[in-house]
């Protein structure tokens, strides 16, 4: 059973459908208790950092998500769900985020020829030993991205992608915590393979 956290940050249908395609049952939850007892947590999200943080607070989920992310139980952050695991985001004039992973989220610089948001398929290069288990499922392959903000490179960076002259963190690994800036649930067969790999981590 995969527990998907619903905190009003975007649509969860795609995530649910992707696990269904792998024959895996999901539950969509919006309360701290369900997150606390979950075996395997998926923390998705699209939209803006500030409203995401406000919503987590409003549903009383902030502490439960933070605890789940460092619990040693499998955890997967996706897109905004990855970004707000970091300490701070420059979005909305600056927002303190969950602080589970050291580092900061910034906006892409204005570079001629690079549109913001970055929309489309971009490749991921695995960095360091930390991503060993999922490495062959990721390295050099393209995944689907949609974002205007990015996480800087840091100790937890397991995958790097380049856009607008910037190398950014496209995958995070810290123990049982994995997170990705891209959408594995929308990245075709390759994305499904990654989710399948995560299910056996």
């Amino acid at each position, binding site marked *: 059973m995969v527990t998907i956290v619903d905190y009003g940050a*975007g*649509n969860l*249908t*795609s995530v649910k*459908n*992707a696990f*269904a*395609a792998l024959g895996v049952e999901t539950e969509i939850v919006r309360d701290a208790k369900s997150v606390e007892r979950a075996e395997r947590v998926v923390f998705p999200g*699209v*939209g*803006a950092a500030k409203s995401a943080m406000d919503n987590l607070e409003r549903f009383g989920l902030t502490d439960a998500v933070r605890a789940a992310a460092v619990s040693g139980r499998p955890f997967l952050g996706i897109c905004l769900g990855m970004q707000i695991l970091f300490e701070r985001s420059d979005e909305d004039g600056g927002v303190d985020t969950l602080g589970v992973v050291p580092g900061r989220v910034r906006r892409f610089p*204005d570079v001629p*020829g690079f*549109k*913001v*948001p*970055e*929309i*489309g*398929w*971009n*490749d991921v290069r695995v960095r360091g030993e930390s991503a060993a288990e999922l490495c062959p499922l990721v390295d050099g*392959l*393209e995944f*689907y*991205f*949609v*974002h205007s903000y990015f996480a800087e490179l840091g100790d937890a960076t397991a995958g790097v992608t*380049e*856009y607008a002259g910037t190398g950014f963190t496209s995958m995070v690994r810290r123990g049982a915590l994995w997170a990705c800036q891209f*959408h594995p*649930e*929308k*990245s*075709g*067969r*390759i*994305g*499904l393979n990654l989710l399948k790999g995560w299910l056996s981590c």
Partner: protein
Amino acid sequence: MLTKRVIPCLDVRNGRVTKGVKFKNNVDLGDPVEMAVGYSDGGADELVFYDITASAERRPIDIGMVEAVARAVRIPFAVGGGISSLPDMERVILAGAEKVSVNSLAVRNPRIIAEGAAAFGRQCIVLGMDPVKSGRTASGYEITTRGFREFTGMDAVEWAKRAADLGAGEIVVNSVDADGTRAGFEMDITRMIAEAVGVPVVASGGAGRPSHLVDVFRGAKADAAIVAGMIHSGEYTITEIKREMHAAGIPTRMNY
């Protein structure tokens, strides 16, 4: 490197994919879900569905079809046509579409762009536009609506800039002049808009050969291109198109 996207367009009428030239002479091409799966497996980077009769008949979008596509494919897709309000957008997004495309609606009520972007994020809101060559506006291209039936007097480049300012996350430039001709994309208006806005631009209308995509990516700075007839007819596969793009040095997703 971010790759240039190839996006099959499926025009749906009464639950079937159809293709006509300039919205006329529609031919039945198949089941939308089966075709979506085929193109997704075959290397499409994204899909777009237009419910082409919805606006004209003032009929709401077929949500059951959107749900069925979302269950069957694992790549992003956009839905347009028949969206007349914020609740319509929400229904389409909750059914599993990544993006909603607004066209005539946004001309009538530009605020829907801002409202949609605020509610769902700008990446969900696509502005579709149908420009036609015209002597009546500054850029030489005028916006038409309701399936090319009405001329608005609006300048295409100005409208693109305004839509991006309002919150459109992407702009589809569907040339009325090139649509259905398979003689190549309309390069000038695509490039003018790609240079005028900071959001991705999708070229649409006129794709007939793989080299047309190479041209529009290289010469008109498009971020993505829509294909329809050339693949629906079986004349080309997406892989054939992508091989030619790749060979021409255009960043292309080849591993799928």
